[in-house]
């Protein structure tokens, strides 16, 4: 009898994980897509629900591709993508609205003489092709690569922008931005990455191709290691009332602070 009860509880637990944005009632906003946008959209959704308690907000972290597909098939109101829409996706009647930009700073210890790297060199460093700081104008010391754990949005963003997916030779894989910054600050030969908003004085962000990372350079596109966070909607069909309210809320200037608190640069 106890065993049966345990089994039922287990099944209930397992099922609760799998429910997505399948149901679509009025007064609900369903979003689906990029796992990298979890923090930003989560913060916005929470604030929106607090603002208007009659509307429930759901977010299904599936990935940019499946989020776009979900909008197309009408399985959710707003799709979330951490890349620009492809031409064939736009041709199917989708529009993308840039919600925010995700800028990723490449950080080194404060005493590291290297201050500028380009995207190619950064890719070569992280794949292990360049293994010594002297090859990029630094001391004769082995480069120590510090990154995030598999599945992290920052890692995924960094690797997809630099084209190093799955081939980074990390010495350390840490589970939070704070840990990465601490580890880099403790080792003068280390290099790592962190979302722009969380870079602190204990480490230094290198300029990429001569451009220093900042909100402005991320916004105007001159800083290379960045990607857009996009809201995907259908161009011809209007949003539900609740979804339109949510859309207006997150693109309003009021949301900018929430977005930057979540580590991204607001587009507005």
């Amino acid at each position, binding site marked *: 009898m106890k*065993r049966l009860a345990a089994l039922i509880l287990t099944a209930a*637990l397992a099922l609760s994980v799998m429910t997505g944005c399948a149901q679509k009632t009025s007064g609900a906003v369903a979003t689906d897509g990029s796992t990298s946008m979890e923090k930003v959209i989560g913060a916005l959704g929470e604030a929106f629900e607090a603002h208007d308690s009659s509307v429930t907000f759901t977010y299904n972290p599936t990935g940019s591709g499946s989020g776009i597909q979900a909008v197309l098939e009408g399985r959710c109101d707003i799709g979330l993508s951490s890349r620009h829409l492809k031409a064939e996706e736009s041709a199917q009647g989708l529009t993308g609205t840039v919600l925010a930009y995700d800028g990723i700073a490449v950080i080194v210890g404060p005493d590291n003489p290297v201050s500028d790297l380009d995207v190619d060199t950064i890719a070569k460093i992280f794949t292990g092709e360049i293994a010594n700081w002297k090859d990029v104008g630094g001391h004769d010391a082995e480069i120590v690569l510090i990154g995030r754990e598999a599945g992290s949005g920052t890692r995924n963003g960094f690797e997809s922008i630099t084209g190093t997916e799955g081939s980074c030779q990390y010495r350390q*894989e*840490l589970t939070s931005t704070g840990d990465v910054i601490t580890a880099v600050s403790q080792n003068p030969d280390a290099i790592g990455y962190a979302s722009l908003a969380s870079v602190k004085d204990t480490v230094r962000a290198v300029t990429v191709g001569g451009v220093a990372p900042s909100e402005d350079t991320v916004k105007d596109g001159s800083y290379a290691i960045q990607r857009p966070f996009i809201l995907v909607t259908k161009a011809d069909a209007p949003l539900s009332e609740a979804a339109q309210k949510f859309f207006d809320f997150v693109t309003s200037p009021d949301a900018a602070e929430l977005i930057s608190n979540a580590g991204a640069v607001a587009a507005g």
Partner: protein
Amino acid sequence: MGHKRRLAENAVHGIFLMLGLVTVGCVLLITVYLVASGIPAIRQIGLVPFLLGDTWGSTAAQPSYGILPFILTSIYGTAGAILLGVPVGSFAAVYLAKLAPAQVRSVVEAAVSLLAGIPSVVYGLVGMLVLVPGIRTLFHVPDGASLLAAIIVLAIMILPSIIKVSITALEAVPKEYEDASLALGATPIETYFRVSVPAARSGIAAAVVLGVGRAIGEAMAVMMVSGNAANMPSLFESVRFLTTAVSSEMAYSSGLQRQALFSIALVLFLFIMLIDAALALFLKGRKEGR
């Protein structure tokens, strides 16, 4: 009157029984859940490639799920911590139980209790800020986050349980044994190491097993100092333990990756059950031995 009392007695008995069963229920629930969610991935990957595969790349284009590096790292790390922690801990226990003046003993015991109460994230943080850079400069390696750093942190973390259980075991040795040894002309030190320690050995062994259990299950502190790259274990390499393999990827995992993490947890669970069985055996041996 007597009937009423018996009724109250039975009610209290029932309440206690229920409370006891809560624990049993929790264990049962966790076990069933772990087995149910750990088996599918092992089925899909295959038991041998899962346990003996030497590459872990859960988010690669061609994912591979071999956890041999984690298993070996957990075994090496625990063995290393025991190697460092047991001599220090058991000698400290002999000193505290037999040699130390009462005042010294009360101060040291308070310190040991405090050491047991420090949260593991604090061990990790201190390790990250002091130990990791220290290993880097001391051994001239590119980065200090390594198996060695994890071993040192674990060794310190298991000290309190080893010391406390060993003290209890040493104090349980009948005074007559020691008196007899002293009366035969042995010095106090000879007595402690030839008589007291052997007489308390099953208790000290239990302390060691307890330490093993603590070391193999620790995640947080280890995660912060060991680097977490899925390498085969080597003293100065960045390594990933069974515990950290689960906790570091769980947050964003999905699909087979998540299931495989549950399978790792299942393997860890089996290890800990083995250790618990060993502990029970030692404790039983102690009861029957004397």
